[in-house]
């Protein structure tokens, strides 16, 4: 596949790895804030190609992981209702709420369906006029244009049986929370390539300047990640803190303007709670007043829910890069992909699941990803 395969070339990957090795003179801690990048790093073992001075930590870049517990509970409540067809991306089906997940709702008879695109949910609404179709609109900025379009089209068509349960989050506020934290050790950022494809990267410039942290917009294939890391490390070694664009084949500085325009029309910026982190001001999207009729929370009367997290799950600290999954007392014991306590163990992009699944081999021992043993 073009624009995919060539970015997985092992010889080129090794070249970048060598370049990184010959550039570093001291330890650096870089954070990537995108579940897709976490997945790629762990799948290809990219961290293994890096010199030990470069440490990668994974930020809260998995929208599945940061969806608040009460929102999952709201989803479960709505999906369990007899007249509802609940549509969702596959990622959300196994995330545990307070007492079950969407799969168990399906097992108990709920009509829960996986869709590839939000417009598929709109189609289902058109085809089932006697049912209420609810779409679980989860995601970062990358998915907002598609979700916005589904609502826009529903309004255009005057659909009365379509609504969305919104849990959109924005990357820059989360980055600021992490960088602004007194315990922060993150020195460089790899910005999420597809988020920036939609949003551009102008909004990262004030962040880079304020916190003196280099930010490199990075893609997802091995060469993208290695080049992104190389660019970030080069900046750190040179004492620069600029925003650079590694993923220039897809990302323009201004981003995708028509997409941003429709998102601004259908959604507005709101405060959002991030699972494991807490509420971050102005960090999410909710429906704009003109489209408020499509809000599933209002339509189904579930706005007031609250919920409490399991005390042993430290997903918040993991997602802020403050702790590694193996620092968690429940990791690998009470909490595994088969019986997860928190979202990062459920989502295949979650740091905990990625670590658990791809734990690496060193001679005859099993060693967790990220804990570099000597020799």
């Amino acid at each position, binding site marked *: *596949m073009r624009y*995919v395969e060539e970015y*997985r070339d*092992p010889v080129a*990957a*090794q070249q970048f790895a060598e370049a990184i090795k010959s550039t570093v003179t001291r330890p650096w801690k870089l954070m990537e804030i995108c579940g*897709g990048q976490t997945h790629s790093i*762990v*799948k*290809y*073992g*990219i961290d293994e*190609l890096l010199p030990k001075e470069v440490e990668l930590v994974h930020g809260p870049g998995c929208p599945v992981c940061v969806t608040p517990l009460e929102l999952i509970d709201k989803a479960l409540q709505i999906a369990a209702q007899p007249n509802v067809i609940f549509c969702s*991306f*596959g*990622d959300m*089906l*196994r995330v*545990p709420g*307070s*007492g*079950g*997940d969407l*799969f*168990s709702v*399906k*097992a108990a008879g709920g009509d829960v369906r*996986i*869709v*590839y*695109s939000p417009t*598929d949910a709109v*189609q*289902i609404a058109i085809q089932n006029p006697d049912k209420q179709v609810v779409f679980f609109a989860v*995601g970062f900025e990358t*998915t907002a244009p598609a979700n916005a379009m589904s609502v826009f089209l529903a309004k255009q068509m005057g659909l009365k049986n379509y609504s969305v349960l919104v849990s959109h989050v924005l990357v820059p506020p989360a980055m600021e929370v992490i960088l602004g934290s007194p315990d922060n050790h993150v020195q460089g950022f790899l910005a999420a390539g597809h988020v920036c494809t939609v949003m551009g990267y102008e909004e990262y410039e004030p962040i880079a300047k304020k916190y003196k942290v280099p930010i490199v917009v990075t893609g997802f294939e091995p060469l993208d990640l290695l080049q992104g890391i190389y660019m970030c490390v080069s900046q750190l070694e040179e004492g620069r803190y600029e925003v650079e664009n590694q993923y220039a084949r897809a990302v323009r500085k201004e981003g995708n303007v028509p997409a941003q325009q429709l998102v601004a029309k259908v959604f507005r910026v709101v405060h959002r709670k991030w699972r494991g982190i807490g509420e971050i001001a102005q960090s999410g999207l909710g429906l704009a007043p003109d489209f408020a009729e499509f809000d599933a929370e209002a339509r189904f009367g*579930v*706005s*007031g*829910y*609250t*919920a*409490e*997290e*399991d005390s042993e799950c430290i997903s918040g600290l993991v997602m802020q890069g403050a702790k590694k999954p193996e620092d968690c007392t429940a990791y690998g014991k*009470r909490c595994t*992909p*088969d*019986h*997860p306590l928190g979202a990062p163990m459920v*989502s295949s*992009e979650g740091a905990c699941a990625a670590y*658990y*699944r*791809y*734990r*690496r*081999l060193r001679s*005859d021992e*099993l060693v967790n990803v990220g804990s570099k043993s000597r020799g």
Partner: protein
Amino acid sequence: MAEVKSFQLQCPTLLNDSERVQLAHGGGGRRMHELLEGLLLPSFKNDLLLERHDGATLNIAGARLAFTTDSYVVKPLFFPGGDIGTLAVNGTVNDLAMCGARPLYLSSAFILEEGFPMESLRRVVESMRITAAEAKVQLVTGDTKVVDKGKGDGIFVNTAGIGVVEHTLTIAPSSVRVGDVILLSGDLGRHGIAIMAMREGLSFETTIESDCAPLWEPVAALLDAGIEIHCLRDLTRGGLSSGLIEIAETAQVRISIDEMLIPVREDVAGACEILGLDPLYLANEGRFIAIVPEHATASALEILNHHEVSSGTVRIGQVLEKPAGLVTMKSRLGTERILDMLSGEQLPRIC
């Protein structure tokens, strides 16, 4: 304003000890494994069952027979390259073939839902007839039941099969040895994608056909040539990964494979990219792995590549000693990772 509710957090491990059967229990992954190990195997404990192979090889009155059964619940019923009938025959034929047994006779039981179209039933039966003829097996006994409308998903089919073992090898995970090589009979994922492509919301314009096919002929050819086959496994639900992991765990060996050697067709790879699926975990219905001693590699490859259904056979890895029970894969970048069994079904993702 809606009443504010707060939830007492329940222990999430309840999800695992759920008192309800979930889809994952049939998915070929961890949950199904747990159901087998936790309920079924201990209940019906005997040495034959504990071989944990696709079929049981029995010694009856001096003859070695293989016996197997499978149920077919696939949705959609009709898909490019086959239907539930094709699967029902080939699936059981292949389980017998994986024991090294020549498939001879099948039984077939139908559970039909009231209201199921007769035309669909005719199509399924006709598929079974054609497939049985191709596989050179006879359907010699069967049963038909009808359940109330709403109590069955159109049609469920169970087939059981008997085959004869005409060699003296023990083809099972217990025969796998360190140093053996792993051969894969062809490209992965066509069946899984064909099925997923037909489901709502995930349709593609181009048609990827299921690879559903009978696998006895290439196995027979290996046996006729005197190849010392240690283990065979057809790759169904859970894909290549699950098949290898089960063998590695049962035989207590390490299996090491190389990503660059695993064949995946470009369009299947494309579908996997869009849906976020891993071809190593996709279902196949006409692919198998053969584990043979190193010295038999060249001959086995030649024989298998001679037959249409296994004409893409390649060597993908080998059996090592430690750590026992693990399957590892060398990525194209040269790094190694562990292939874990999936918890449940593989789902399309956006993330």
